[in-house]
């Protein structure tokens, strides 16, 4: 693995519930060190103490000038994180309501020592469609949807089922194939947001306590080495309700251990430690049936029937 710290970008317009979601995430028991940065007005809101080590010999700009590009609080803040005694496992970057997430993701996700894990956009079910036609923020709200690897519809409980369905259809036209999670009061299962722990023993995650939130995970151990190109083909067929796939496998072409990570429609392969236990985990907020369908697709990669059939656990 490359050792870069993953960044999850939480985007969404004002009132979409970004802070609530992050607070819920921080309070949850996920066993990871999460650093939260809040991007705002082209600047990052962080403890002055955090950056004081860095700036001893220079003058710090509070939040820069908007007419030129001379300051960069985001980079400064990310650098400051790398100087911490205990490195975070994960950075959650709360984008300002008016941030174009793809631009911010390019900036933060390519900062030395960091990489983008996922862009998650929150949408306020009550107002998002209205905002999307607003002359000042319409384009922005749409590009926040289009950039997302994962969409969270907040306040879905405040609108009728019919509205919700229509909303889902409308979202589908803007972001085809991107999963949409319904969330009440910012409560989204941390696994859906931050994925599963980075430890190599995936099956262990199956024994964790069930969560109050609606999501299911599924585990599959491939019986032998897998070809990357076959795997990619299968990944593309997965139902959109499957938000995350993570797995260690042995590459049939090289014999090396590889880590696959997929969020939304993006995926990456990295070298993995050889001692990693092979196995795939899928996380879904959809119905258990869809998860099962996903598992079937994935396990059909090998013609031999799997040694352990796909097991589906639904936490409710």
């Amino acid at each position, binding site marked *: 693995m490359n050792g870069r710290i993953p960044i999850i970008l939480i985007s969404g*317009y*004002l*009132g979409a519930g970004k*802070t609530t979601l992050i607070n819920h995430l921080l309070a949850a028991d996920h066993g990871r060190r999460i650093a939260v940065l*809040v991007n*705002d*007005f*082209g*600047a990052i*809101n962080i403890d002055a103490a955090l950056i004081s080590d860095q700036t001893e*010999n*220079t*003058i*710090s*700009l*509070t*939040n*820069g*000038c*908007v*007419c*030129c*590009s*001379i*300051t*960069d609080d*985001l*980079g*400064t803040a990310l*650098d400051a994180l790398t100087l911490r005694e205990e490195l975070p496992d994960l950075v959650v970057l709360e984008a*300002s*309501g*008016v*941030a*174009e997430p793809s*631009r911010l993701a*390019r*900036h933060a996700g*390519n*900062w*030395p*020592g960091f990489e983008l894990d996922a862009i998650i956009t929150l949408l306020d079910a009550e107002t998002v469609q209205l905002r999307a036609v607003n*002359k*000042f*923020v319409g*384009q*922005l709200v749409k*590009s926040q949807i289009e950039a997302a690897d994962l969409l969270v519809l907040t306040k879905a409980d405040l609108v009728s089922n019919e509205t919700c369905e229509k909303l889902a259809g409308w979202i589908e036209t803007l972001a085809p194939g991107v999963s949409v999670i319904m969330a009440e009061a910012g409560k989204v299962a941390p696994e859906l947001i931050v994925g599963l722990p980075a430890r190599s023993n995936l099956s262990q995650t199956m024994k964790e306590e069930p969560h109050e939130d609606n999501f299911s995970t599924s585990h599959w151990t491939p019986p032998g080495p897998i070809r990357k190109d076959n795997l990619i083909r299968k990944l593309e067929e997965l139902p959109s309700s499957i938000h995350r796939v993570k797995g260690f496998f042995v590459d049939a072409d090289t014999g090396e251990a590889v880590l696959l990570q997929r969020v939304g429609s993006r995926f990456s392969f990295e070298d993995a430690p050889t001692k990693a236990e092979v196995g795939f985990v899928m996380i879904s907020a959809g119905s258990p049936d869809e998860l099962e369908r996903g598992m079937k697709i994935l396990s059909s990669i090998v013609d031999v029937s799997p040694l352990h059939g796909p097991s589906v656990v639904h936490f409710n």
Partner: protein
Amino acid sequence: MSEITVFTARKIRTMNPSMPEASAVAVRDGQIIEVGTLQTMKPWLDAHPHRIDESFVDHVLMPGFIDPHLHPSLGAVLLSCHFITAMEWKLPDRTCAPVRSHEAYLARLKEIDEGIEDPAEPLITWGYHKIWHGAVDREAINAVSSTRPIFVWQRSFHEIIANDAAIDWMGLDRAELERHPQIELDSGRFFETGLSIAVKAMNLYLFEPDRFKNGLELVKKAVHYGGHTTIGEMAYPLLDDSAEWNFLGEAIERDDVPFRMQIIPRGALRGVWDGEIEDEVARVESYASRGSHRLIFGNGVKLFTDGGFFAELMQMQEPGFIDGHHGEWLMAPEMFEALARAFWNAGKRIHVHCTGDLGVELALDTLEMLQFERPRVNHRFTIEHFGVSTPEQVRRIADLGALVSANVYYVHELGEAYWQHSIGYERASQMARLGTLARHNVTTALHSDFTMAPALPLNSAWVAVNRIAESGAVIGPEERIDLDAAMRAITIDAAYVIGMEHEVGSIRAGKKADFTVLEADPWETPVENLKDIPIWGTVFEGQPFPIAK
């Protein structure tokens, strides 16, 4: 009371329409006592001790020039760089002759490199422009020096090109740079979000406190050199407040500084929605007690709508940008509205940074709403920058009683570039549409937003009356303004925009004795040569300050 000093001059252009020309001005204790001729002011002179100062008999006096929007702290940073520019840049400590070919560019870079004694000192040069200087890449700069870190900073701040020594100096793993989609390690180019990685390294050098202080000294000279006696810092603070206040106080509140600065605080330090708006109003109010003689906190406040014009992050109405990218909001429209309402209701003069026509639209929609909720007259709500706008917006500006402070230099530097690469000819040629403003009688100031444009009011006025783009062609001739309007825009109308028209901006009894002393009369100079009129220096509150030759 001191004795009266009477300055006589070849001509005094008062910018007071009630007495546009004069030949003598009597001054006492920094204030104008009377304007006219030696003959008309005889009663004052008979009644009080006086002396006649004839040092300006060959000169033309104008009211001290005013730039209502520039940023000394940013200027301090840029002026510590080496300038290699296609256009001539006249700076107080150097005149940068135009450099207009690839060979000349590299030769000049080499010359600068050889002029720096310490072989390890980074060299940061600003002003590179591909159209003039060809493709300057990593290898080309390596050939200039393989040991000294060299950063070539593109003129519009969009891009930095670094040599290998500079890349090493950044102290980063090359693999981290290689994977960046907006860094091209082969050519040494850092652009867009990749730019911040190079800027971060450069800032370690540029923001070193002694260098910064030295830069501030250069800015003071540049302000004097342009003929200013009053400037506005339009977005305080840019640095940490206490640090910046100390730097500015030390540098500017001194007897040998020939200008005053009105400081316009930014209305929000942060863009967070949950921030208490009352706290922001209270913070802005709290600065008022801090003023000194030369550093004044007035009634203004600065807000922002859309992104930077040089960065092409202005918010555009349809049909947007040629390449389909989108601009940015600097604060959420709802937040802008809430802040504007709070400051409007607190009776503040609101200045709004607006660069694209959608940014202008937001400012005007908001102003219209506020006028409906709580009508105000003489509110002086000002559109700052005024990059792209529509003629209909100008009419609304007039109807709503708003003002404009324009960075007309955009036309000269970006007019043709934005025609070719950004928004096409029609809208690019009409950026900073001053002609339409004049036809609607909208009070308009010109500003430099230094370092976005040279801090030279005569240069801004020259662009406003000629609209000569960088190639020398005239673009958007219908948006030119006449000389009178342009000169008002750097004197009395600029004073009006920052609420100081009762004190400065024209030469009349009772105002501050601030003059810009010119070697030629702008009204007797061909308008194409306006920018080349030499400035002898200034008189600040009655005291002459020649520009060091």
